[in-house]
């Protein structure tokens, strides 16, 4: 599994270098000799895996299906961008896959504002993927506001888990 993650991180590091944020990984050395600015195909499904390539399970297990946001925030931090970098590479490796990006909020906001905020979060993730070369026609967004929490309980920890965008395989274009 190691070599796969290394490859994806190499692409991530390359992309991160274009953004103003400092590159936080020390593993970027391997990317030093990549001259071409275009992200390279780096995703390879694990050997011997029983998980179907391009499936939701594949995305969840081998890539990461979600990114998290601060309270009333919709900007992507370095960690979120790293997950989305991997998603972009994975989408490139699975060109027939379409996705929905769901935007979600914690329960500490009002319903209608949270619908708008969830929409912003889903579109933050989508815009970033599109920047990385994902065809926008493959990506649909939907906001659930605070209607579909993943973590139960009225705690800071649960709220942090619920402020998220989740990439779901399928449903594009509707």
């Amino acid at each position: 599994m190691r070599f796969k993650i290394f490859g994806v991180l190499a692409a991530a590091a390359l992309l991160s270098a274009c953004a103003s944020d400092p590159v936080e990984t020390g593993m970027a050395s391997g990317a030093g000799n990549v001259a071409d600015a275009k992200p390279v195909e780096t995703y390879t499904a694990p050997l011997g895996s029983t998980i179907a390539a391009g499936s939701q399970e594949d995305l969840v297990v081998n890539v990461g299906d979600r990114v998290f946001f601060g309270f009333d925030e919709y900007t992507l931090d370095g960690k979120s961008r790293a997950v989305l970098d991997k998603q972009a590479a994975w989408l490139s490796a699975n060109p027939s896959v379409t996705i929905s990006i769901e935007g979600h909020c914690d329960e500490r906001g009002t319903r209608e504002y949270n619908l708008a905020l969830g929409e912003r979060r889903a579109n933050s993730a989508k815009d970033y993927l599109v920047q990385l070369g994902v065809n926008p026609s493959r990506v649909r967004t939907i906001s659930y506001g605070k209607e579909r929490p993943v973590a139960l309980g009225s705690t800071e920890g649960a709220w942090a888990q619920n402020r998220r965008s989740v990439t779901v395989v399928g449903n594009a274009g509707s």
Partner: protein
Amino acid sequence: MVISVLHRSRNWIYPATLLLAAFIVAPGQAELRIDITQGSVKPMPIAVADMNGQSSDEITFGRDIARVVATDLERSGLFDPIDRASFIQTNDALLSRPRFGDWRIINAQALVQGLTKILPDGRLRIEFRLWDVFSETEMVGKAYSTVPDNWRRVAHIIADEIYNRITGESGYFDTRIVYIAESGPANRRKKRLAIMDQDGANHRFLTDGSSLVLTPRFSPELQEITYLSYIGNVPRVYIFNIDTGRQEILGDFPGMTFAPRFSPDGKQVIISMARGGNSDIFTMDLRTRKVTQLTFHTAIDTSASFSPDASQIVFNSDRGGTQQLYTMAVDGQTPRRITYGSGRYATPVWSPRGDLIAFTKIHKGRFFIGVMRPDGSGERLLAEDFLVESPTWSPNGRVLMFFRQSKSGSDGSGGRSRLFSVDLTGNNLREIITPTDASDPAWSPLIP
């Protein structure tokens, strides 16, 4: 469903003895009245006698109607219905004329009595009178006829008449609530559109819960509800016709439409639409289908509500950095921020009287329901909890309903959501009993 007002108090046909009685009332006595603008009102003791009838059906209707009237009045917090067990004069004797001394002894300031009769055509006729016990005068007397099944509505209309006669304000008992009925765990919450009378009676589910539904609001004539539904997993504003049960998508918008409300004349719906992550406010004319964009800001603009004269709109925006309330002209011009207090403000709703805007406020991890004048001055907070949200006005602008959600545990326990009402004075907090958990209440206008 026809309710005809057969008599008004001024042209009531009195028996001769009642006419004589009217002449001996001492003039110049202060009128029985409750000033509901005061901060805290001592409830007025009122005797609501079971209405008279001849047949057992008539007696049953008479008793049930009187109980609904008394319950309405009691729940307003302005009246204190007197225990029937202490009544001295019997219902039968009331038929000729109240013995006011008997009612003064038990401290009744007002007395309600009436008569029910099942007419030869099967309709139910109900007459009632409201008496001022101290001045020994009839304050109002009216009669209604309707199909017997409609008896609860007549009771609410009578309660509204009493409320109106004694407070000088129009009542709010002959109204309905549309809301979201909730069940199941928070991460798989089932939400259904539901409707009930304001006292919780005649409860009915309008959708089956197969699609997520949110934020219902009545049209001014009550025949329609606009709300957000995730039918087909596509969040869009719909209009539900209560009579036909049909639901219809509002317009053909390229992005999520949400936060709908009818205009005061019912001819437009104001909504928010999200496109490319940005939410702006639009109106749609229901007849011409013409769509007008009112805000063009990169910030979130949502939760729009018309002023009752339809000259202005109040809405929620984070264009200043955090969620605040803004007003603008009905054409979208001259937006103006009205909230400068500490905290975030949301869900503004203009009072039907026009004098106040109700809102949800979030401050230091707590939620509040409050009101302020349309220029943002005079903020008053009426309710506070872990989560209170979504105020809606009684049609007379004197009571607010909202929902309150409790904290939940990591095992999914708690997190109960319930409807409450509170006076504009901050007094008389009451739960509205619903069969399941409940949120997003919307109070109807008086039923036409």
